[in-house]
């Protein structure tokens, strides 16, 4: 029973973290048809920004609870600014190119951003652990969880709800969905596709940085943290279907629960299970779980 509870909670925590990262990635792909390899770098920038701000905040002796607003806000702003620079500086010159070319372009951006983070923050690790212990612990029988980790589940739920609401219940969301369905027709109908692209990329970038910022207190923030996460995020969006936010949520849940199941029952399968799930889904539904196969336009 205890193991079952542990699997459920561990799976949910891991899924929440994965979902926040993958949501931005899949949103950008859905609207712009860009598989953004630099998303991991945005995650890293969010983590570094948060860690720097936490370090400064606690070093200055401010009231501890204020740090949450600062590091989360700081990470999101850093993500938005970086996203705007990438979109205006690089991507807009590349629109209309083949999706494979865009992968190479964003891969180039990733390499540049990796060096930019090293230039700005150096190679030494940063710690932002103070907020991690502030929410306390929650005890279930002999199992103790960090309150911070459980809060992540709520944050992921909020992010998911906000995205669903924005896409389905607002005028901007409807315009965005129109662009997702057909960029050319949307343009012909007078939708400002360029503006939609900018806003979408900034939101996607902010989500990546938010995930990094939220993770920073539990980690040693060091160069390369963005590379590891991007591989997992790709697995999640591929399982759910590229471009589907709902799919990303289900993909993250599947990966999270299956991984926790493996860790608690057959730890030697932990590495394999994520890609095993992905391979199994793709064998049955090559387009992912939540994307309807469509005829290609010629």
């Amino acid at each position, binding site marked *: 029973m205890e193991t079952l509870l542990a699997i459920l909670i561990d799976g949910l925590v891991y899924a929440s973290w994965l979902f926040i990262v993958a949501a931005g990635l899949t949103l950008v792909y859905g609207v712009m048809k860009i598989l953004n390899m630099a998303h991991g770098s945005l995650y890293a920038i969010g983590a570094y920004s948060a860690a720097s701000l936490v370090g400064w905040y606690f070093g200055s002796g401010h009231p501890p609870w204020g740090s949450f607003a600062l590091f989360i806000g700081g990470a999101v702003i850093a993500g938005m600014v970086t996203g705007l620079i990438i979109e205006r500086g690089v991507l807009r010159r590349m629109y209309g190119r083949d999706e494979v070319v865009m992968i190479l372009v964003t891969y180039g951006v990733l390499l540049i951003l990796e060096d930019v983070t090293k230039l700005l923050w150096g190679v030494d690790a940063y710690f932002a652990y103070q907020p991690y212990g502030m929410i306390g612990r929650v005890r279930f029988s002999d199992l103790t969880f960090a309150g911070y980790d459980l809060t992540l589940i709520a944050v992921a739920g909020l992010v998911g709800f906000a995205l669903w609401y924005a896409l389905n219940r607002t005028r901007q969301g409807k315009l965005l969905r129109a662009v997702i369905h057909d960029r050319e027709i949307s343009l012909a109908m007078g939708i400002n596709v360029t503006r939609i692209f900018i806003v979408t990329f900034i939101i996607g970038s902010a989500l990546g940085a938010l995930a990094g910022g939220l993770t920073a207190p539990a980690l040693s923030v060091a160069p390369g943290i963005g590379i*590891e996460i991007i591989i997992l995020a790709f697995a999640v969006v591929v399982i759910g279907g590229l471009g589907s936010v709902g799919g990303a949520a289900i993909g993250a849940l599947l990966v999270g629960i299956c991984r926790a199941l493996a860790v*608690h029952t057959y730890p030697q399968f932990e590495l394999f299970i994520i890609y095993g799930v992905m391979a199994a889904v793709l064998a049955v539904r090559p387009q992912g779980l939540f994307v309807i196969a469509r005829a290609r336009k010629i």
Partner: protein
Amino acid sequence: MAGRKNVRNYSPVQLATASIVCLLTAALCLGHPPSVRADEGTYKLGLVTFLSGAAAGPFGVPARNAAELIIEAINAGTLPSPYDSKGLAGMTIESTIIDEAGGGTKQVGEFRNLVQRRNVDAVIGYISSGDCLAIAPVAEELRALTIFFDCGTPRIFEDNDYKYVFRTGPTSTMDNVAAARYILELKPNLKSVSGMNQNYAWGFDSWNDFKWAMGVLKPDVDIKTEQFPKLGAGQYGSEISAVMVSRAEVIHSSFWGGDMEGLVLQGAARGLFDNSQGIFTCGETAMFRLSDQIPEGTIIGGRGPFGVFAPASPLNDWFRKSYMDRFGTPPTYPSYKMAQAILGLKAAVDKAAAAKNGKPNKEEIAAALKGLEFQAPSGVVRMSLGKGHQAVQEMVYGQFTKKNGKPEIYNVRRYPAECVNPPDGVKSEDWIKNSLKQTSCN
């Protein structure tokens, strides 16, 4: 007489000048003994350590800093005895540093570049056991003198014989055999352990050595769970829960670098070590960086007598003070091990040069390093395993505490090299399973 027109007439002054120049050149070329020519030479040294990735902060950069400090001191001749002579047998060290990040395949390419394009005389490097396993056969193929300074897998010299490859740091066997000995001295009635180690050569070797040693020294100890998260995974929530559910009395981990720091942060926040005794075989690198997070009483090791475990000596005092003055933080074990590798090379080059009275070649240096006993800030290093290619040293463990806000170690126990390392020619696994029980540390 027709040819006479082609003969140029020189004035006596021109002839005299030419003669003086020739004589001076001849004197410069022939007049100095070979050792003086070596003085004017340089020794090209390739250094490989993590400059990016999670291992850079706790491992790569401290190792690079130590290399910088030691090489400058060697070149200037300002090291304490027995290294107070200038350079490597008089040769100035000219170093090139390469980032170890990127995995074994990339490192093999970088190694070939160092040896074949940059023509380095020797390579010192490698923190990752996976990289060491990949580099060793290539180094042998290229006949490149190579010294591993940090990686720990014992398989390098247990499974192969090398002529040009050396390791001046001890293997992971002694970390884990000593860990088992220490924990059993601390908890003689121990009933259960769990392990959390990284999913690659280092993690498996470390856990197996610990598990085998425990199985021999106290066969009734129950192994509750064995977790092997991916290297660099970052998030260990599920693994921590699995270990918590196992309710083991002791948690063994050979995590290092950012992974170890992440585990300490996440484990401490969840109270993982409240009811279980943690033992981190590589914990020493975090004791200053995460002194507020490491739980009181955690057993930590430093992969040998390094860092806070290093015995006092003029060389160690100089190293600690110079490092602190320059980098503002005490040197941790990667710094010690890098310094040790460079000093091992200096000892070998000086020895080979003294025997030859000139600049030695790599074969002569390798022969000098083989089986060498030399001094390092961590004490005496004996190249006595792997047919003289692998170092052994004593192993030290202690428990972490904070006194007046400063991190310290108490309950320190030193294990002589002979009781935590196999004899030469015997594989770690065979020695642990067949002879460890009969090997005394007293």
